[in-house]
Each structure stands twice: as structure tokens, then as C-alpha cells.
């Protein structure tokens, strides 16, 4: 079975190469070939790989996945996107159908001189020099098989480039819609986001599937923040059980830039977020927040890496998880402080509440510090709800069921309240509160 998929991918790569050779810049075709070579030698990971120890990737081989070329995509399957929109009046929408930028559904309301938003393939041709400077320069296709696979097959995705000194007030919604009506596709969006000096930008990503066949989305996003740039990045994963996501985000930060991410994994049989930031100059700040609320046999795996390569940078990391039934979560937070990165402040915390005996969390803080003048801390907790808090609520006449929901609500709200986009915050609250509704919680309206 395993060999079948590797063979299929190899023959897809030959077809794909024939098609794109000469079409893309030559230099980039070299990168693609190298990436594919790496993918072939790395192969798909198994549990023997330290980075995938707690993730069951057998879905890759159990389903009849294949990579499809442009002309094989059923774009017609997507006729209406209104159900997938979040109620924001002035939000800019970028729709990617099976990883391809959709002119038809995307809607941008910002002047082009402030920000360029469009298809990566298009940009590969008319902005070749810029793309060449950034694309495949940050996300490592040498070590990570999924980045290698994505890089080998780069077809399209979203290209965003904010000019210098612009504040983009209205967020950009990147909407991934995958069609899986006849076949089970491997979908590989590739995004490149560049934020100019002193500019501010907010993006959120959501994910949807049309059709009932399985989907494997292997996305890679590279982000380059110039000096003093400020970028907020949200992901809300609320997927159907037949979709599998592996999402790699690699951020490169220049002097005094601020990157803030908030990743919600609320539903889905396989959600892996590999989320990395690299400080390429001093005074950078990275804030990594996340929440996973899993039930049934859901799985979410957050692997983060913050590389403090230069002095005087800060990172704050807080991931919280609620795990019920037989759900399974992984948190692996690595902080790497280079020898010259003096005066680094790095804080990391991962807190988990397990609601059933079969729920599983594997949490692993990893601090590797080679500088000697730094402030770093980490902590991980997992347990049940606090008994004293629960009794306090009971002693005021609040039923156990409601008391539990109230406490879970409170636990989650610390992360939810960090969302600065009102429409998105409400959307996340609604998804979280849906869980409580079954337990008769009415106060979510005021959460």
C-alpha cells in the first residue's frame, strides 16, 4: 500500500514536471527537483521519527490519495461560498479551491498600492525576483518531508505583499475549500506572505470540504516580516472527520517585528500544525497562542519552534487544551536560544484539562539554551477540573454539569479573548459554546 502511494506520487511528479518546465522560472524548477529528491529519500514519517512520535500518520496510506493536476480539479463543485463566510462587513476574502487561487470567489477591497493579494503562480511569473528571494527560503524542504512534498509540487496558493508603512485595518480571510466528490485528493496550497516595514496586517484561515471523499491538505505558508512589521495570524480548524491537515508555517522576522498567532483546533480527525518562527534580528517578538478542544477520536498536534537567533528578542507561548472521550493531543514546544542571543526572554506554557480517562495528551517542552544571560521559563500541566473551584460553584447551588461548563468556558476564554478581530472572536466563541449547548449552558452569549 505504502509503495503504491510513493509510486503514484513519483509518476505524478513526472507529469507535473513536464507541464511546468519552462513555464516557471528555471531557478525555481531546480528547487522543486531538489525538494522532490529530498522527499523521496525522507519518505513519509513513521512513529520512529521523533517529530512524529505521537502522531498516527497511517491515514496517508489507508486512503486512496493522489495528487491531481490543474485540469483535473472539479471547480464547478463549488457554486456558493456564503456558508463558509464569517460575518465581517469589510473583510477581504481569498478563496483557494484545492489550493488554487479563485478569481471568481476572492474579494479584495484594498487598493493595490497598499497591498497585493493574489495567486502565487501569477506572482511567480511577473514578480519572479521577489518570489525568488523568499519562496522556499524559510520552510525547510531538506528536513521536513511534508514541506519537501509541497515544495516539489508548488502549483498555487496565496501571495500577499503589504507595502511599507500601511495599516490594513480590515482582516483578510483565507478560505480553503477542497472538493472531494469523485476522488481523494492531496491538496497542497503554498502561501507566501510579506509584510513591509512598519506595516500591520491581520489574517485568518478557515477550512472546508465539499464532497464526502477524504482530503489530505498539506499546506505550507512562509511569512516574511520586515522591520517593525506587525502581523496577526489566526487559524480556526473545525473540520469534518474525513479531512486530514498537515499545516506548516514558517515565519522569518526582521528587526522589531511582532508576530502573533492563535491556532484553534476544535474538530478534526488529524490536525498537525508545525509552526515555527526565526528571529533574524534584534527586538523581535513572537506570540504563539493556541487552543484545542477535542472529543470523540479527534487528534491535534501542535509542534512549535521559536528560534531566538539574535539578542533582545521575546517570545510568549500559551497553548491550552480540553480533551474529552478518546481524543488525543500533542504539544511540543521547542525554544532554541542561540549563543549570541543574549537578553532573550522566552516564556512557554501548556495547560490541559482531561475530561475522560481515555483522553490523551503528550506534552513536551524543549528548551535548548546556548546563551548565558536569558530569561526563559516553561511549564506544562494536565489534570482534571480544579476540585476546589468546582466545590465553590456547587456550594452556591450551581449544578455539577453547569459548574463544569462554566469552568471550561473560563479556561478557554483566556485564549479566545486574545483574538482581536471581533467577527472571528464571536465565530470561535460560537464553536466553543456549541459544545456547552448540549449541556444546557445559556451564558455563552455573555462569554
Amino acid at each position: 500500500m505504502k509503495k503504491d502511494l510513493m509510486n503514484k506520487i513519483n509518476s505524478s511528479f513526472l507529469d507535473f514536471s513536464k507541464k511546468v518546465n519552462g513555464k516557471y522560472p528555471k531557478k525555481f524548477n531546480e528547487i522543486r527537483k531538489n525538494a522532490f529528491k529530498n522527499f523521496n529519500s525522507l519518505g513519509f514519517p513513521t512513529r520512529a521519527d521523533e517529530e512524529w512520535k505521537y502522531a498516527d500518520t497511517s491515514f496517508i496510506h489507508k486512503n486512496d490519495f493522489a495528487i491531481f493536476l490543474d485540469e483535473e480539479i472539479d471547480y464547478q463543485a463549488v457554486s456558493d461560498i456564503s456558508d463558509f463566510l464569517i460575518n465581517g462587513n469589510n473583510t477581504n476574502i481569498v478563496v483557494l479551491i484545492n489550493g488554487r487561487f479563485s478569481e471568481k470567489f476572492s474579494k479584495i477591497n484594498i487598493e493595490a498600492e497598499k497591498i497585493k493579494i493574489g495567486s502565487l503562480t501569477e506572482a511567480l511569473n511577473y514578480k519572479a525576483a521577489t518570489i525568488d528571494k523568499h519562496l522556499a527560503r524559510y520552510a525547510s524542504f531538506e528536513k521536513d518531508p511534508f514541506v519537501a512534498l509541497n515544495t516539489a509540487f508548488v502549483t498555487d496558493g496565496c501571495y500577499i505583499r503589504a507595502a511599507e508603512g500601511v495599516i490594513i485595518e480590515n482582516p483578510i480571510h483565507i478560505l480553503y475549500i477542497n472538493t472531494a466528490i469523485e476522488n481523494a485528493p492531496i491538496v497542497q496550497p503554498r502561501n507566501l506572505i510579506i509584510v513591509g516595514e512598519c506595516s500591520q496586517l491581520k489574517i485568518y484561515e478557515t477550512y472546508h470540504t465539499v464532497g464526502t471523499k477524504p482530503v489530505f491538505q498539506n499546506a505550507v505558508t512562509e511569512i516574511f516580516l520586515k522591520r517593525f512589521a506587525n502581523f496577526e495570524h489566526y487559524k480556526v480548524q473545525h473540520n469534518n472527520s474525513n479531512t486530514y491537515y498537515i499545516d506548516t508555517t514558517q515565519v522569518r522576522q526582521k528587526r522589531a517585528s511582532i508576530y502573533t498567532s492563535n491556532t484553534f483546533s476544535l474538530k478534526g480527525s488529524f490536525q498537525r500544525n508545525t509552526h515555527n518562527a526565526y528571529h533574524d534580528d534584534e527586538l523581535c517578538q513572537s506570540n504563539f497562542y493556541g487552543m484545542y478542544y477535542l472529543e470523540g477520536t479527534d487528534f491535534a498536534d501542535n509542534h512549535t519552534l521559536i528560534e531566538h537567533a539574535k539578542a533582545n528578542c521575546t517570545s510568549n507561548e500559551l497553548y491550552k487544551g480540553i480533551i474529552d472521550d478518546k481524543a488525543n493531543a500533542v504539544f511540543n514546544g521547542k525554544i532554541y536560544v542561540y549563543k549570541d542571543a543574549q537578553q532573550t526572554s522566552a516564556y512557554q506554557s501548556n495547560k490541559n484539562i482531561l475530561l475522560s480517562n481515555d483522553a490523551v495528551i503528550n506534552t513536551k517542552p524543549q528548551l535548548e539554551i546556548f546563551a548565558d544571560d536569558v530569561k526563559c521559563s516553561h511549564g506544562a500541566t494536565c489534570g482534571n477540573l480544579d476540585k476546589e473551584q468546582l466545590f465553590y460553584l456547587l456550594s452556591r447551588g450551581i449544578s455539577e454539569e453547569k459548574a463544569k461548563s462554566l469552568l471550561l468556558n473560563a479556561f478557554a476564554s483566556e485564549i479566545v479573548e486574545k483574538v482581536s478581530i471581533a467577527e472571528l472572536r464571536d465565530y470561535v466563541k460560537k464553536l466553543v459554546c456549541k459544545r456547552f449547548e448540549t449541556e444546557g449552558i445559556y451564558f455563552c452569549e455573555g462569554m
Partner: protein
Amino acid sequence: MELLKIENLKVNINKKPILNGINLTINAGEIHAMMGPNGSGKSTLASVLSGRTEFEVTEGKVSYLGKNLLEMPAVDRAKEGIFLAFQYPVEISGVTTANFMKTALNEKRKHLGLEPIDAMDFLQMMKEKAALVEIKNDFLHRSVNEGFSGGEKKRNEVFQMAMLEPRLAVLDETDSGLDIDALKIVANGVNRLQSKDNGFLVITHYQRLLDYIVPDFVHVLYQGRIAKSGPKELALELEEKGYDWIKKEVASQM
């Protein structure tokens, strides 16, 4: 009217006897003060009444409004009108006091067969009760007890008591850690809530609180028994002489 009747109550913690036969009756309209040296069992008594489960009742009966209290889970006791002001109120990050009280009040109303309280009425009620213990409005919209000083936490307990209007309130060392101003505020809150229909059990170390909350009865708990009961003057005597003479009295009776 009899609110609470405790008969020969004996309680163990980890097989160790803590209460050794308590007898106490509290009628509506009465304030009882429970005093006694450290380790005499005061807080254990409060905990048992509130429905904590880490105790083993080995003997005795407790009835509340004619019902067997020991068979009622904590949440039902609260709905039926028992309130415990905690010695160490718990901080709950992410739950505002307003939300907490609205939830608790509506649970109680549901229990009584009433509709949930109207939002405007609730706000008005909260405002009035907060004024009673001089709590600022913005406190109510902050997480329960989070970052509150000791005095603020205790005032919040009395505020909650005012909101839930219990029949029987047990105050577990509500005066500990309070400065004199906070003490007056807390005592004033209790006095204003006191009526002919409800009863109070005020557990305290010091006579000081009883300058402001005037009890009908004072009991001294020692070695898990009520060693002495008397009128409010007993508290003054204890303040003056300490607990040693009670200890001697108990020893001479053995």
C-alpha cells in the same frame, strides 16, 4: 421556627475523630457565634454543614428544615438555602462575579419553579447588594476573586450571601485577615441581612467581630465538643481570660 438541629454529631477525617458529639439547635431569627481555640473543629463543622465529602460522619443526625441534611448533596443544600462564606474563598479566572451570581441565582430560581431573572432586574439587584458591602461595580465584572485582597474576597462572600438570600448562613472565620474598616463593612452587611426568617452561625477566633455582629448565643468548641454555651457576655469573658479556663474546666470533668 427550627432551622438546624445537630444531634450528637461525630465526624472523622482519615479515621481521626475531629467532632466528638456536637449538639446545636439554631432557630430562625438567631445569630449563634462559634468560638474556640485552633484545631477545636470549628472549620470542620462548617465544612460538614456545607456538604463537603472528605469527612466521615460516624454518628449523629443533622436536620435542616426537618430534612436529613447529611443525605443532601452540597448543591441541593445551597438551593435549599444554606450558604457557606468560605474561610479561603476560591479564585476562578475567566468567570466574572456577575456571571457566577446570575448562574447561581437562576439555578436557585429554577429549583423554586421560577423563571430566570430579568436582565435589568438582575443588574439592579446586583447594584443594591454590592452597595451593601461597598463593592465597586467594576469588581463584579472581573474574574471571581482573582487578584482580590483578603478583605475584598471576604466582602465578596458577603455580597454573594446577599444575592442568594439564604435561610441559614455559616460564616467560616469571615473576620480573619480583615482590618477594622473591612470588618465593619462585613459585619454591617450581615446585620442588614439578618431577619426573623433566617439564622446565622458565625465562626470566629476573636471577640472583635462580635462587637459588630451581636450574637444571641455564644458557644465554645473544644476537642470536638461544645464545652460551654452562654449569652453574648461569654465572648467578652473569653476575650479577657483566654481559653485556658475552659480547657481546665473540661479537664476537671474528665
